[in-house]
């Protein structure tokens, strides 16, 4: 589904990703861990198409298409979703209206019929189940005045409604208490259907305890330096990242 080969990415002329290789197959859940500044969020933003994240060399293929040539909204319509580490507040834009507009924009781009208000409400209510999220948040402006946990749950709600084929979760666990973390993990697990793929970016192993990743990768200084199974996350939890920093020094 996703093939990243020798990816080099610069932000404001500073190279952040320095030859990253990664392949994610259908239905797989990959976790990317690594210390601060290793390039984890840069990877997420690059995949989603953020401006100023310049691919200087290498390639990203998503279902055989060159992702680098696609606009952010085209990537979304193709089935890519980024749950932001810091979801943006958009004053004045109704949360439900925004989500429905996004859903219909994607459907339109794919040549599918638009979803009417009644059908949309049904979809949202279904998506809210289990997230312990107050429906009234849908009537408020996007993320405005939401707590940290509510913002993260709103991201998961969006993901559930938009039904992406590949979801990138950028430190979705940061700022969540134990109960909220569990709810968010359950929300992610409900979307695992053997076809949908996930790239989970995290610092900690605790989210992965709930998600059972197929593969765990360690990102350090812009490259994946180690890959393994869930046991790798446990080892990193015990040992930390200091040995990686020593190695790169």
């Amino acid at each position: 589904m996703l093939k990243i080969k020798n990816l080099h990415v610069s932000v404001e002329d500073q190279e952040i990703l320095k030859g990253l290789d990664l392949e994610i197959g259908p239905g797989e859940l990959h976790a990317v861990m690594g210390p601060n500044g290793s390039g984890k969020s840069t990877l997420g933003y690059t995949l989603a198409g953020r401006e100023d994240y310049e691919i200087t060399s290498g390639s990203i293929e998503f279902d055989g298409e060159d992702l680098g040539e696609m606009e952010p909204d085209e990537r979304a319509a193709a089935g890519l979703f980024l749950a932001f580490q810091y979801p943006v507040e958009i004053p004045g834009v109704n949360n439900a209206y925004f989500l429905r507009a996004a859903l219909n924009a994607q459907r339109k781009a794919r040549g599918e019929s638009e979803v009417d208000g009644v059908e949309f409400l049904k979809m949202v209510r279904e998506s809210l189940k289990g997230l312990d999220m107050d429906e009234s948040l849908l009537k408020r402006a996007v993320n405005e005045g939401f707590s940290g946990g509510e913002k993260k749950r709103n991201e998961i709600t969006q993901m559930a409604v938009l039904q992406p084929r590949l979801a990138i979760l950028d430190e979705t666990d940061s700022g969540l208490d134990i109960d909220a973390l569990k709810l968010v993990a359950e929300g992610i697990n409900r979307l695992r259907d053997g076809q949908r793929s996930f790239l989970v970016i995290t610092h900690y192993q605790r989210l992965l305890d709930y998600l059972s990743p197929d593969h765990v990768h360690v990102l350090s200084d812009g490259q994946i330096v180690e890959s393994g199974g869930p046991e790798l996350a446990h080892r990193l939890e015990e040992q930390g990242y200091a040995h990686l920093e020593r190695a790169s020094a």
Partner: protein
Amino acid sequence: MSALAQTLMPEAQACADDYEATRKVGLQRLMQHGFPDQKTEAWKYTPLRVLEQRETQTEPRTMGEPAALPAWPVAGTLLHFDHGILQCDPGELAEGLTLMPADPKALEQRDFDALYGGREGAFSWLNLARFDHAWHLQVSGEHTVIMATTTTDAFSADVHPRIRIEVLPGARLTLLQDQTDAGQGLVNMNCEIDVAEGAQVEHVLCCKNHESVWVQRTDVDIHKAAEYRVVAFDRGGRLTRHDLTMRLREGTAHGEIDGLVVMDGHQHVDWHTEIVHCTGHTNSREAFRMLAGGTSVGVFNGRIHIFPDADDSHSDLNTANLLLSDQARVNIKPELEIYSEEVTASHGATIGQLDDRSLFYMRSRGLSEAESLALLKYGFAAEPLMQIQTPAIRDWALEQLKEAL
């Protein structure tokens, strides 16, 4: 005499009627003070070159068929100023509405010097010198009034409509003022609104101007336990200037101003607002937003003035502005002038651009760049219009906003 004065003050325009003495005062003051230039603080950012370069005609003021009127979202009594002339039969108004010529003696006794000041009030003096008719509308009971001001393509005159709206004690008025123009003239309007004890006024002012020059002055007096709320939705014009002054005359008076200006191209929009707390135990609030695209220029001067001994007055002024292009400009000046100690008054002003992070967030969810920009602008702009309390007018204004964006 300046070219502008020569154009706008031909002596032949003097009308011999009951208002002659009032017009004479207006003309004298205008001759005395002259028209503002960029050394005049209140007109510093609004040059009058556009007007100076035009030769407006003084006759005829009516241009055949009146301009077509749009459909409004509410039913109400229509006061239609077509090319500055009120097209209305006073005898056909709903019960509780009385339209009559203003009392000439009352006009003569008004202290217009205190109201209009010097050169900065030149267009108010011009209105006083040049109005055709001065109207007086009295409102009792509960009413919706639609006050439309229009011109047609052939319009190249200068007109000076004048009306005083007196909302009697306990009355409720919804005033939808809708202005649009065609042609290349000057509309210089003067509107006074008096909100008597216990009365309530919701005033929605929608302007969509083009090549004509529009100058409007609105003076509002709010009395005991009365409420006045205005929402202005201005979609710009070649050159427009609004002076809105709200005076809280007696204790427990309450006033609110919400404003939205959406401008583009080479439009120039200037709003000067003033909230005057003449006495204590009065409350006011103002929030004003501008979106400036193209090479447009916006001016917002918001002033809160609290008199001595006006204790227990509360006022808040906030303005937020969005520049949508590198060439657009907005000039913002919030002012507090407070002479009483036991008050709360605050102001805030921001000028910014659309947030790249928000734009990316929306696009990452599937919205195109154009859709995302429109939604971001709408999100910023809708808030003042959400303050409209009549749902049908609010929805109508929000639809117009969507079209404008």
